[in-house]
């Protein structure tokens, strides 16, 4: 296996303040990684660095063997965001369409191939039914599916998702995680997903990357999803419970989950 993302002694600073430092880790190609950590620990900062929006303060970061650069077609991205404004007057499919070539100047002339790519992506996430409705009028789950369709549209190899589950109910959280997992398997995508509540992810993740107290580290779910480690990461009492079926449940992060930071 090759590394999709490799960091070597990486440090991040945001408006003059160091966020974290000494981060050395690799994200294997085709793996599914949950990014955990308390609010304000610098999870989004890491995503922004991988996107090429923020230069490393120190150290080295490589994405598929290259320095991160803005607009890398290998990366699909879902930013952290509340629901779209209810009055936002653009259709879901127009939004996905912008994922094809929305950064190019001018209007698109012809462009059957691009429109077809957007429609195929909408179909792949099962959003065809409501893609013609105004984006702002759709439910949180429907909007999240269209955000995923937009992220998938250029056939990326890496998906970066900043809290795609935060504004969804439990049923939709599970459905979206399952969808991401299925698409990622089928297309052999590497997935990096920031989450507050790990419970919907537990059955799917290969690796945990945590950002806490100025440090970044990785481990397997078995190593990290323990009462001791999670309590240390969040500096709060967190309990990992295993039931008789061997299912794991994390308790104590509800407060984090219900108040996703802006």
């Amino acid at each position, binding site marked *: 296996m090759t590394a999709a993302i490799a960091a070597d002694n990486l440090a991040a600073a945001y408006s003059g303040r160091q966020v974290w430092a000494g981060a050395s880790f690799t994200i294997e190609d085709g793996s599914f990684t949950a990014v955990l950590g308390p609010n304000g620990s610098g999870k989004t900062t890491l995503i922004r660095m991988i*996107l090429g*929006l923020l230069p490393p303060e120190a150290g080295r970061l490589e994405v598929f063997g290259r320095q991160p650069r*803005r*607009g890398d077609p290998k*990366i699909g*991205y879902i*930013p*952290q*965001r509340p629901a*779209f*404004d209810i*009055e*936002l*007057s*653009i*259709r879901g499919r*127009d*939004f996905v369409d*912008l*994922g094809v*070539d*929305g*950064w*190019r*100047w*001018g*209007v*698109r002339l012809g462009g059957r191939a691009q429109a077809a790519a957007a429609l195929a992506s909408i179909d792949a996430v099962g959003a065809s039914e409501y893609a013609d*409705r*105004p*984006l702002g009028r759709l439910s949180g789950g429907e909007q999240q599916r269209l955000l995923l369709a*937009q992220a998938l549209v250029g056939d990326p190899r890496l998906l970066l998702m900043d809290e795609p589950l935060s504004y969804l109910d439990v049923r939709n959280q599970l459905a979206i995680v399952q969808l991401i997992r299925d698409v990622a398997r089928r297309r052999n995508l590497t997935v990096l997903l920031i989450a507050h509540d790990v419970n919907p992810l537990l059955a799917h993740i290969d690796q945990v990357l945590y950002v806490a107290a100025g440090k970044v580290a990785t481990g397997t779910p078995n190593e990290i999803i323990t009462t001791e480690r999670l309590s240390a990461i969040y500096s709060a009492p967190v309990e990992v419970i295993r039931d008789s079926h061997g299912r794991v449940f994390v308790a104590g992060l509800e407060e984090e989950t219900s108040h996703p930071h802006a």
Partner: protein
Amino acid sequence: MLFHYDFMVHAFEAGTVVAVVAGAIGYFVVLRGSAFAAHALSHIGFAGAAGAVVAGLSPVVGLLAFTLGSGAAIGVLGNRLRGRDVTIGIVLAWTLGLGVLFISLYRGYATEAYALLFGEILGISQADVLVTLIAGLVTIAALVIVYRPLLFSSVDEDLASAKGVPVTALSVGFMAILAVAVTEAVQVVGVLLLFALIVTPAAIAVRFTSHPPYAIGIGVALALVFTWLGLSIAYFSPHPVSFFITSLAFVTYVGVRLSEPLRRLLV
């Protein structure tokens, strides 16, 4: 007979250009939620125009300079200005006051001020029409150039930025285009009534479609209808053109909103 007089021909020509520009840019104003910024631009522009008159310059020069300057400032501040309606309101109230001072300093006709505030489309000369046409073509060309990235950054700025869209430069660019459009539209409907041509047609259009090119098309068509009808009615009436244009826009908007429950029943 409507086109018997030159001033009516010029009014229709300039009105057509302004309606197309205002209708087109209106969709983006509505999409970006910058209706209040558009309103503020026109008020700030009023002070500039009045100042230019005092200085012996063409009001259009002052109007353009002030709208461009404040547009750039609003564009740079961008997201940080969202929800700062109070701040913008305070600034624009003051600039309007400044405009009043300039008008009083100018010992000429009050008609200058009147024209700026409420529009004076019937007083447009052949040369004005040409300037309006050129400015209109530049605005439309600029809108075509920034169309896709502007749409992208209007929907999700973070995402557009990650995809390589220069979002801040685009925000400034859009406000500059809007400044030129506002300057043009002021000639037709004036500073105070600008909303009727820039915001109302687009606001009506998005109630019918969320497909961007269609919404822009409907916005332009409505702005044209309001302008042409308003001019035609005014020709046969002693009342000002601006009143008819704004009234047509308002009545249409109210009608569309009120008919919505009915349309929902029919669909």
